[in-house]
């Protein structure tokens, strides 16, 4: 087992463990903190896949913005953020059954994929993936339409969220 595989196993275990802990915690702020650990684990996996840019964007956007937004949302909607919530409800049985079925289906599908043991092709040393990503994002036969649509999507998200979350005028 190479060092890379060892690191991958360790970080995979950490990610899965923190994801599991996140959904079973009854204290919501603790759950948010474990979510941050899981997101950091995903960033490390990106590094292992030679995608350094995606790793830093993952940390910057997910941990630096989305996790903080979630913690704010938790504190905004709870009377007392430290009060423990119920972490299971009556649909517990159905949820376990569905998860088991889904996991079984995934394992069967992955087992039938021939390339599962193959190594990912390594990039040539001279390629700069960020430059390629950048030119692909704005080239007309690349992804320029999704690029501009993404900005419109962000605009729509911003306007929608502000319409929903804006404090009512009458109170101020």
């Amino acid at each position, binding site marked *: 087992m190479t060092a890379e595989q060892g690191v991958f196993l360790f970080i995979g275990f950490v990610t899965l463990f923190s994801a599991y802990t996140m959904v079973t915690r009854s204290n919501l702020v603790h759950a948010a903190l474990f979510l941050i650990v899981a997101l950091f684990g995903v960033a490390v996996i990106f590094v292992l896949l030679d995608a350094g840019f995606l790793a*830093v964007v993952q940390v910057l956007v997910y941990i630096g913005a989305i996790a903080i937004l979630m913690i704010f949302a938790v504190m905004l909607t709870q009377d007392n953020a430290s009060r423990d919530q119920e972490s299971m409800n009556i649909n517990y049985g159905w949820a376990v059954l569905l998860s088991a079925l889904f996991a079984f289906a995934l394992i069967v599908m992955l087992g039938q994929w021939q390339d599962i043991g193959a190594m990912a092709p390594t990039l040539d040393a001279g390629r700069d993936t*960020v430059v390629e990503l950048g030119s692909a994002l704005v080239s007309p036969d690349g992804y320029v339409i999704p690029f501009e649509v993404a900005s419109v999507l962000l605009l729509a998200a911003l306007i929608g969220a502000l319409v929903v979350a804006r404090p009512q005028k009458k109170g101020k």
Partner: protein
Amino acid sequence: MSFFQDPVGAISALISNFLYTLLPQAWTALIMTLLGVVAVSSFGLIIVIFLIWVERKIAARFQDRLGPNRAGPYGLLQTFADMVKLVTKEDVIPAKADRLAFNIAPILSVVAVLLIWAVVPFAPGWIGTDLNVGVLYIAAVGSFGILSVLMAGWSSNNKYALLGAFRAVAQLISYEVPMLITLMVPVLLARGMGMVDMVKDQTVWFIVLAPVSGIIFLVSSIAEIGRTPFDLLEAESEIVAGYHTEYTGMKFGMFFAAEFLHAFTVGVLFAIFFLGGWRGPGAEATPLLGVIYLMLKGFFGYFIVMWVRSTLPRIRIDHMLALNWKFLTPLSLALLILTAIVEKVFEGNAWRVPALLIGNALILIVSYYFTRAISRRVTKERVTFKKRPVAKPA
């Protein structure tokens, strides 16, 4: 002579040759990495001791007094005395505080600042690691610092700490936006995010090519580190000590050290991105000179931070956030658009530099008139209020 020209290269060659004879290659690489890490982080931590002394002396001189001069010659051992004092203080963890988050927050705060030093180019060939996404990495690591503030405030089980943490996080995330946008201007000018290339491409210092962006970067960085005029996070008269109210002893010492190191790091980053990093006469040949130039420029940036701190009064939070969202963000976006278009139109042309300067000056003038018009309108609205009933004698 060649040893002094490149001491780090000579020493690392010596050690790795020695290790090659003992261990297989992978272990040698690992140990060399470990030694590099220890060297860089020790440098970061040791310079904090010096920084605290510099800060206190210079702040004192700005205030027309002497500063610490009892402990050791010129007060140089004052920081050691303070550290010893903090170590011997009792570590009080408030009842009902969330112990895990409470203990992790100061460590996370120091780690977030130290991680920045891994990508700082000290000299040509002396860098912790040359990530090809160095600039974005620095921004990403800053988000860990924000997280530590939130954890500290929330886990203290103290209303005022929580309130202080929320306001601190609101300030930190707001000022991250102009910081990211103005960071994109050097990335644009250097055509890459790697820190080594950033300094190598500064044949003309970027402060000349993008002066207003540099100033906006400095201002938003001062807000990011929580220094006056943006230090209402620690305004003692307002919310006690903000998010680190409940911290005692060495944990408070960690927050304290992290703040000073962050202030110096901001000075060094300003030097790297806008003042040419280690560039200077003779730096390519003798890397040691490169380190000296970088430290001088970094201390210059740090001096500006201290100067601003000693001179300006504290800004109110609504003014501060309005300054960010209504002035700095649109201005930095306008500068980014200007730099992008001018760079493309004048590519490779010698007229690039004057065109950029003129563009910056134009935007500055336009924004000045714009803000003056807005402030006049706001003042007029405030002055013409409805008539109040006159007080009648009882």
